[in-house]
């Protein structure tokens, strides 16, 4: 089992650190004293890497992502992207939210075009619409371009959200349980589409998920968090499957079950939620 655990130093990568989470802690002051959500988190993500963060509810996964996206600041330590310290949100770290966060009064196309306008204010409106349409084409939604979000299904909304995020070519794509609200068929379809898009764009992805299978299919490394309070990184598992990946091929590979059982053991035996934690 020990061979599965990737040591930061032992991993041979021909790249410089891209996104660095450097000894980060997050403490919220409360009336009963300080409450530590995250403690001593260090993680280095390389350019073009796909990293999944997995852990039980309330372990501070979202807090960790919010510090990368810039919505919250670490109490201790810092997060750096290309050696620059992250202090606030920006379009270089585009977020795909679980609840889509599309503006309901704008069409799918205009939602994407708004993002393009914010990053390239110098472009003409027709250029922006053209670029937005190209992004929608990437997620197979050209037919629904003129529709308002409420006319779209959950899966389609999340496609628009992904198209919006990628339309501005972010350095890091941050996904916070993007498929959590979708049914299983739509979820699998979108996983494969995300895999394809990531392959083509070579964008660096940081993604929160609850699903071990999803993490194994998509990511290069799986970061497993211990339980809160004062959660930290328990283990980092390398996912060795070659790219491009196909669901059927991976699920038939014996290593799939080794990784899967290892992760299940981590989440449900070593760091299981005790009965008192659940409520």
């Amino acid at each position: 089992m020990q061979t599965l655990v990737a040591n930061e130093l032992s991993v041979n990568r021909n790249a410089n650190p891209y996104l660095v989470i450097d000894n980060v802690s997050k403490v919220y002051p409360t009336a009963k004293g300080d409450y530590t959500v995250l403690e001593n988190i260090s993680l280095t993500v390389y350019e073009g890497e796909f990293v999944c963060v997995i852990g039980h509810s309330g372990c501070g996964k979202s807090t960790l992502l919010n510090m990368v996206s810039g919505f919250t600041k670490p109490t201790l330590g810092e997060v750096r992207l290309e050696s620059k310290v992250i202090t606030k949100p920006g379009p270089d770290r585009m977020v795909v939210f679980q609840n889509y966060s599309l503006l309901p009064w704008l069409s799918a196309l205009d939602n994407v075009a708004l993002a393009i306008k914010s990053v390239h204010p110098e472009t003409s409106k027709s250029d922006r619409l053209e670029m937005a349409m190209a992004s929608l084409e990437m997620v197979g939604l050209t037919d629904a371009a003129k529709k308002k979000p409420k006319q779209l299904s959950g899966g389609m909304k999340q496609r628009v959200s992904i198209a919006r995020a990628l339309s501005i070519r972010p350095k890091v794509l941050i996904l916070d349980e993007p498929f959590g609200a979708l049914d299983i068929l739509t979820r699998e379809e979108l996983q494969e589409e995300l895999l394809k898009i990531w392959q083509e764009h070579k964008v660096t992805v940081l993604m929160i998920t609850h699903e071990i299978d999803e993490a194994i299919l998509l990511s290069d490394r799986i970061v497993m968090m211990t339980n809160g309070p004062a959660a930290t990184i328990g283990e980092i598992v390398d996912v060795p499957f070659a790219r491009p990946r196909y669901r059927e091929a991976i699920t038939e590979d014996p290593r799939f079950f080794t990784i899967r059982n290892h992760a299940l053991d981590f989440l449900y035996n070593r760091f299981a939620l005790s009965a008192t934690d659940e409520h």
Partner: protein
Amino acid sequence: MTSTNIRKKSFVSLVSEWGQGQLKFILPPVLALGSLLFIWQILCGGEAPPLPPPTKVVSEAWNLIVNPFFDNGGTDKGLGRHIIESLRRVGVGYSGSVVIGIGLGILIGTNVIMYRAFDPIFQVLRTVPPLAWLPISSAIFESFKGSPVLKFMGTDAVELSAIFVIFITSVWPVLMNTAVGVQQVPQDYRNVAKVLRLSRTEYFFTILIPSAAPYIFTGLRIAIGLSWLAIVAAEMLKGGVGIGFFIWDSYNSGKYSEMIVALFYVGIVGLLLDKLVYYVSVFTVQSDA
């Protein structure tokens, strides 16, 4: 032969089906109105009743009912002309409410300290009824009597104070609903604005205003009702042409039938104004899924 018979029958049955379908919507209000008029007729049927019964209202005010736009000069005009004059005043006062209410509402809604400072004051002021604003309004605008600025604007102090009563009655719901709507911009949309680093103007027009629009329209709809309510109070002061003054004048000269007909006009116009703002909001606002 048989086929045309069947077609005829089915056409007739279609019409009667439609009639029966509509009947359950038409019949109850007609019956309710009929019984109310009947009760009124009975109650006011005796000798020297306090108000004329419906039959007498119709016979006495027949000229007003059938000729809404006659003009004999002075204040002797058809009710349609009185209504138009009142609508003009409401239009001016209500426009002021819309502009100032939305403007101040956005200012207060986006600034927590301003909101804390002014919200309690507005909460008190909004409960002051139109009639109570009348003396204050008169006092303020009497000091402007004969001012050359007013002459230049083609208006007089009394007219302005009437419009001010309409404005001050209807501005509060616009202001407070706008402030709340601006405060209620969902965190999701704010997050999108933060990630995209939208400029202030971009945020204002693409996120703040559309997101607050349903709240603003709720305020506008309450306000149009209130400003129409205020017209009677405002025109009691003003005199001259206008449906509010007409009612007051009819009461003073004992023409109760005319007063009652005018009341119906006020009610129907108020309903139409409410529906107008409602349909504008339906066409404008794109609500969330």
